[in-house]
């Protein structure tokens, strides 16, 4: 059974904690993306599963078996590396065949299987070349081919697309997703690109400073960020995060003030029970409706910088109190610099975070 389970997995380098109490379970056929900024411990977590890093404490269980003390060559895990890690002295075909040498199969069987994956990944024409003689995209496919040529316990991908140009990245993303869906193995993909995570993953684990901040489906992490960090990390343009003070709460309507302006927002009952009035309001740039007149439910701001993005326009606006707010408006709506905007946040897409940074939800 192809599953991965991490229980309180911790990795320390001296005093530095690279990963702390990581709990993660990946079911058969599930793709989980570890997403986070550089140095957040996502690659360390992946290498702990692979056995390339010994875990300091906790447990690594792959396919139902405790793997803590097994060396990587005994774990039967296939991994695709960021820099592909092809064997420079072996041809593409030999590279792909490398993992098969330990399965004690006949030469013809080996060739059949290499040819089969080469066909899936369109590598048939370069099998006899050395890794140095093929293009970047082909190298990437060789790395994937080498991983899927055998039948491992699970798959690990370390930033698999980071070295490709934009166009290749898009097509490879689709190809990898398709290949993975046919294999039904537990898969972990490390990436710092949220688009990659949102498109490829069944679930996303967002990491920061060695800690998993939230695990959820792409929809969940986008629509219900667990804390300020997840809210700011997922979604482009970035979520607007404004520090504010809760001044009044009545029947699901909260009055919050930030830097001089009071606005009324619709929210949930738990906001009223917060012990500290210091909160952070998170509103996605696409969650605003521009209204014609100022009222107590919209935010007053002045357009400062206009960035056309094609289908939409990104407007940087400044509130009276001096906060910058990013607003995405449809292309048809022409906004001029210096224009006064009355922005009404969509209640369903307005997140309230408490003083500790955690989202306040029912």
């Amino acid at each position, binding site marked *: 059974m192809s599953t991965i389970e991490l229980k309180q997995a911790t990795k320390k380098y001296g005093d530095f904690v690279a990963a702390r109490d990581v709990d993660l379970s990946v079911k058969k056929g599930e793709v989980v993306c570890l997403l986070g900024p550089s140095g957040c411990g996502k690659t360390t977590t992946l290498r702990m599963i*692979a*056995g*390339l890093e010994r875990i300091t404490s906790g447990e690594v269980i792959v396919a139902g078996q405790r793997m803590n003390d097994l*060396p*990587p*060559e005994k*774990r*039967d*895990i*296939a*991994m695709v*590396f*960021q*820099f*592909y*890690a*092809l*064997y*420079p*002295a*072996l041809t593409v075909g030999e590279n792909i065949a*490398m*993992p098969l*040498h*330990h399965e004690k199969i006949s030469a013809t069987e080996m060739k059949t299987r290499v040819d089969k994956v080469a066909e899936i990944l369109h590598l048939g024409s370069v099998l006899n070349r050395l890794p140095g003689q093929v293009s970047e995209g082909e190298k990437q496919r060789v790395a994937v081919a*080498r991983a899927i040529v055998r039948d491992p316990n699970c798959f690990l991908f370390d930033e698999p697309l980071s070295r490709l140009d934009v166009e290749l990245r898009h097509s490879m993303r689709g190809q990898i997703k398709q290949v993975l869906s046919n294999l039904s193995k537990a898969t972990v993909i490390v990436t710092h690109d949220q688009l990659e995570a949102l498109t490829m993953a069944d679930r996303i684990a967002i990491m920061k400073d060695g800690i998993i901040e939230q695990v959820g489906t792409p929809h969940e992490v986008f629509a219900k960020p667990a804390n300020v960090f997840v809210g700011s990390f997922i979604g482009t343009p970035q979520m607007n995060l404004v520090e504010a003070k809760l001044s009044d709460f009545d029947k699901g309507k909260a009055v919050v003030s930030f830097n001089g302006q009071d606005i009324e927002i619709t929210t949930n009952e738990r906001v009223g029970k917060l012990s500290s009035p210091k909160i952070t309001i998170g509103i996605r740039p696409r969650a605003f409706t521009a209204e014609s007149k100022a009222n107590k439910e919209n935010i007053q701001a002045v357009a400062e910088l206009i960035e056309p993005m094609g289908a939409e326009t990104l407007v940087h606006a400044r509130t009276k109190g001096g906060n910058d707010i990013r607003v995405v408006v449809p292309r048809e709506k022409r906004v001029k610099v210096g224009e006064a905007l009355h922005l009404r946040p969509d209640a369903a897409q307005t997140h309230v975070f408490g003083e500790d940074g955690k989202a306040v939800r029912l």
Partner: protein
Amino acid sequence: MAEVTSIWEKLGFRKASGVSEAGWGQTLFAGLISLIYFLPVLLIIITSFKLQTEALSIPPKFMPTNLFGLIPDAYVFSPTLENYTSVFSRAMTSGGVAENTGFDRYFFNSIMIASVSVLLALVIGTLAAFGFSRYPLKGNDTYLFVILTTRMLPAIVVIIPIILMFRVAGLSGSYLGIIMLYTAFNLPFTIWMMKSFFDELSLDVEDAARLDGSSGLKVFFKICLPQVLAGLAATFVFGLILTWNEFLFALLLTGIDTRTVPVAMSQAVAGGGIGVLWGLLAAIETLFLIPVFFVTFFLQDHLLRGVTFGTVKR
């Protein structure tokens, strides 16, 4: 753009792509400079074809032919192979019969001792270097430094204790002794060179090999070693040249049967009471040049990659 393959390119000399060739003036200038460096070697090669009187004549006779009368006769010598035959066989006393000089043996000794000890050092040193690079000990750098210190002492300082040790151990004059000594002398250099090559390799590739099911030994032989072939070649050539030219230890630690060419050469020219036999000396030197020249020539591609290894980022 048309691909022009000159005879030089066919021989393996390549220029970097995208670099334009130098003009004639610069080429000529570079040629002149190289001539200055190459002149001593050239003189030796020319001298090896001269008789003793011609070798000593002033002005020097530097042309083997008068080029159909273009060169004045004062500068022309008549080339002879006599020096080369007398390297191996000549009369030891004036008027005596020609006898074997033993140089065939000395050449064999030089080739055997140098290649065996350099290869041994390469095998041991490469394994050690991989260990130092991948499985560092506590205080790894200290060990590496200690290894290097064995090369810091001038040979003349350590020669007396070594002679005494060899005498006690009964190793003086044996092949085993001199081979062990040269191996030990090549090791620090080999370890340091090879460690730097292993350090340059991408660790990802080894991680990948492990995940693909290779154990440590297999990773070393199948993955790492093929990647440092250039380094092995470079280390081999440097070690070979050092050992090939070594004189002091060979002089004091080899016996009559195990004598190497540099030692035999010094003794061959000194004797006789008729001054230095320049022609003979030049002939021995020319023969002595040939083996290393060929090894270096055939490994030049690797050599160049070896010494510039790691200067290009991935």
